[in-house]
Structure formats: C-alpha cells, structure tokens
C-alpha cells in the first residue's frame, strides 16, 4: 500500500542518498546569478536594480534542472506502473513528486536567494519581500515542471524539451513574481502577491490533473 506520505518520504530519501539534484540546483542558481556582475558590470546601482529579476530568472532555470528525471526513474524500473495501479490516485502521486521536487530544489533556493541578492547589492530591506514572493512562486514552478516532465516522459531530448514547454507557461509567474518583490514599485505589492497566490491555487488542482493525464498516456 502506497500512501502520499510514504511516496514523498521515499522520494526524499532517494534524493538525499543521491545527494546530487537539490544541491546541484542551488549551486547552479548561485553560480549563474553571480555571472551577472561580470556580464553587466559591477556598478552597485545597476546590479541592485536588476537583482530581483536575476534571482527570479535563475530560480526558474534552476527548477528545470532535475525535472526530466522527476518521473523517469520510476517509469524505467516499472514503479510508475505500480503507482498507477495503486489505490493512491495518480494526481496525488504527481502532487507528492512535485512537493518532493520543491522540498529538494525550491526550499534551498529560499535560503540561497537572500545571499545571492545581497551579493548583487540588493538592499537588505527588500529581502523579506523577495523571499516571500519566491516562497509563493517556487511551488508553482515545481507544479508546472511536473506537467512538463510528465508530457516529455520517454521523449527524445526530454531535458531540453521540458524547458521549451515549461518556460513559456512560467512567464506570467515570472512577471508577477518580480513585480511582487520589486522594491522600486509603488505600493507594497499586495496585488501581485495575491496574483501569485491565485496562480498557486490554480496550479495545485490543475497541474496534477494534467500531469496525471499525461502519465496515463505514457503508461498506455
């Protein structure tokens, strides 16, 4: 009998045993973000102004890293077939996977983001808002990523294809995420935060549903 909690714990255990994926995402996030001072020039004002955008874009890209392997391992060794046959609805399986993905690569990002933003000369006063926006936005990234991973299961060049499919869908999230955390914007960004919340609320039921449909196609 597979329960949601059991599935989640198993995925987390696997992730920690392999060690790689979550740490890789964070390392990539930090490294890539730190390329920008070299590319854009080290002037503090310019970097600080772009810091929110850079952090958000890097968060998007970092969340893509482990996506193609989200379902692949289970699919290859037949566990996915067993999960599909189990009483646990496939939608909950997807949710467990997405949650696992977020815990391993999204949550560490929330810790790394303030550090990276500060290195990009971002004013510390804006950090809580940035972390709050990321906290609300990164789960949606994992959910959308799960849809992409399910759609590309078994495809050729799945890793690149996932990015091509998922990034356009994530652009509205990026726009509102940056606007919510932007200290230069008028107001406290509460509308943008509400939109981020709404996007998450929409993604929570819809993404598992779409991803499960895609997984069923893959298992047929």
């Amino acid at each position, binding site marked *: 009998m597979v329960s949601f909690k059991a599935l989640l714990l198993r995925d987390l255990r696997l992730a920690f045993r392999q060690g790689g994926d979550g740490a890789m995402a964070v390392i990539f996030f930090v490294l890539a973000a730190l390329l920008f001072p070299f590319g854009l020039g080290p002037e503090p004002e310019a970097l600080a102004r772009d810091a929110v955008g850079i952090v958000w874009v890097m968060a998007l890209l970092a969340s893509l890293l482990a996506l193609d392997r989200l379902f692949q391992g289970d699919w290859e060794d037949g566990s996915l077939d067993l999960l599909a046959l189990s009483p646990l609805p496939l939608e909950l399986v997807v949710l467990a996977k997405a949650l696992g993905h977020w815990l391993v690569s999204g949550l560490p990002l929330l810790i790394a983001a303030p550090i990276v933003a500060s290195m990009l000369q971002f004013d510390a006063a804006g950090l809580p808002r940035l972390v709050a926006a990321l906290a609300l936005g990164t789960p949606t990234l994992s959910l959308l990523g799960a849809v992409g991973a399910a*759609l590309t299961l078994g*495809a050729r060049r*799945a890793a690149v*294809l996932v990015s091509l*499919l998922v990034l356009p869908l994530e*652009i509205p999230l990026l726009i509102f995420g940056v606007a919510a955390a932007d200290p230069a914007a008028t107001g406290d960004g509460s509308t943008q935060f509400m939109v981020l919340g709404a996007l998450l609320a929409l993604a929570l039921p819809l993404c598992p549903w779409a991803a499960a*449909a895609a997984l069923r*196609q893959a298992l047929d």
Partner: protein
Amino acid sequence: MHRFANPARFMRVSQKLLPWLATITVLFLVAGLVLSFLAPPDYQQGESVRIMFVHVPSAWMAMCAYTSLALASAAALIWRHPLAEIAAEETAPLGAVFTGLCLVSGSLWGEPMWGTWWAWDARMTSVLVLFFLYLGYMALLNAFDDPTRGRRAAAILALVGFVNVPIIKYSVDWWNTLHQPASVLRMGGPTIDPSILWPLLVMAVAFTLLFVTLLVIRMRAALIERKIRVLDAAASGALG
C-alpha cells in the same frame, strides 16, 4: 458526430468543396488587398495604418488557430477521433505562421506608431508566449519514436496552453499598457471608422478562408500519406 468521423467521407466531401474554397479564398484575398490600399490614410498614423490590415487579421487567426487546435486536441483525447488528431497536427504549423506574421507586422507597425520595435507589454508578451506554445506543441509532437504517444502528449499540452488565449484577448483590458484596448470585438460594437473596418473585415475573412483551405489540403495530404504508409507496410509484409 460520428457520421463525420469517417475519413473516407471527409475525403469525398472535401474533394467537392476544395475548388470552391480555393476560389473564394483567392477572391477575398484580392478584394482585401484592393480595399487595404484604397482605404484612406489615417489622420494620425498616415499610410502606416495599412499595416493593420495584415497585423490584426494575423492576430485573430493566431488565436482562432490555437482555439481550433485546443478543440481538436480535446476531441482527439476524449473520443480518440482520428480526424481530430490529424486536424490538430496540421493546424499547428498554420497557427505558428500566423503568429509569427502577427509579431513581425506588429513590430513594423510599432516603430512608426509608438517609436519602438518591441515593448514588453501584456499583449505582445502573451502573443510571443503563444508562438512558443506552437513551437513547443510541434516539438513535442515529433519528440517520440511512437507517433501516437507524441500526438496524445501534444494534445494535452495544447489544452494546458489554452489558458493563454483569453489572456491575450483581455490583457489589453486588464492592464493599461501600450496596446490600444479592443476596438472591434467588443460589447457595443466596433468603434473604428467604416472606411477602416471594411478592409479589416475582408482581410480577416480572407485569412480565415486561407487557413481553412490550407488546413483541408493538409488534412487530405495527411490522410493520403497514412494510406501510403499502410500500403507500404502491407507490401513489405506480403514480400516478407
């Protein structure tokens, strides 16, 4: 519904309709072009307003094509309708071309009108996203060794991406950005001058007819190609 599911019936009906479709497509295209260049120049924009007669119909077609893509995909997934699968597959490249045309013509219109080739406003961004959705759909379609899997996965993607279409339509109403708000398809009727409205509508009909004609031809070609593959397989089986 299932009366029309028969590919053979589609081939028969489309064979009769195709010459007529092609003819009125050409007629409307010619009429549209003539009207586009006979229309008077705009008070503010001068002759550059003529770009609108390419840009706006392209935009409408980009969205209509995606809507048909989504509908065909839904039919393919729910009823496993063979014609729906083919329709979806053949619609995507047409939609992508219209979307690209919308972006290019919009850029050419934006420079004289607003002084910029591109702006990251809500509508332009979501049309760009639409373009990538088309590309993603076509990539996913061809990414699998098993073509059926590709078609099914792409169908799901088409439905997931459909949320973008209302965003494009209403983005100019929700956000007050660079693009002007809706002036044709709105409650209370169009607000633009008839001398501009008529070329626009004729070009829109022309583009729609072109889309339908090309889609029918592509679907016929696809069905013939399927028959060829079946015959090929049978022949090699017979020889083997």
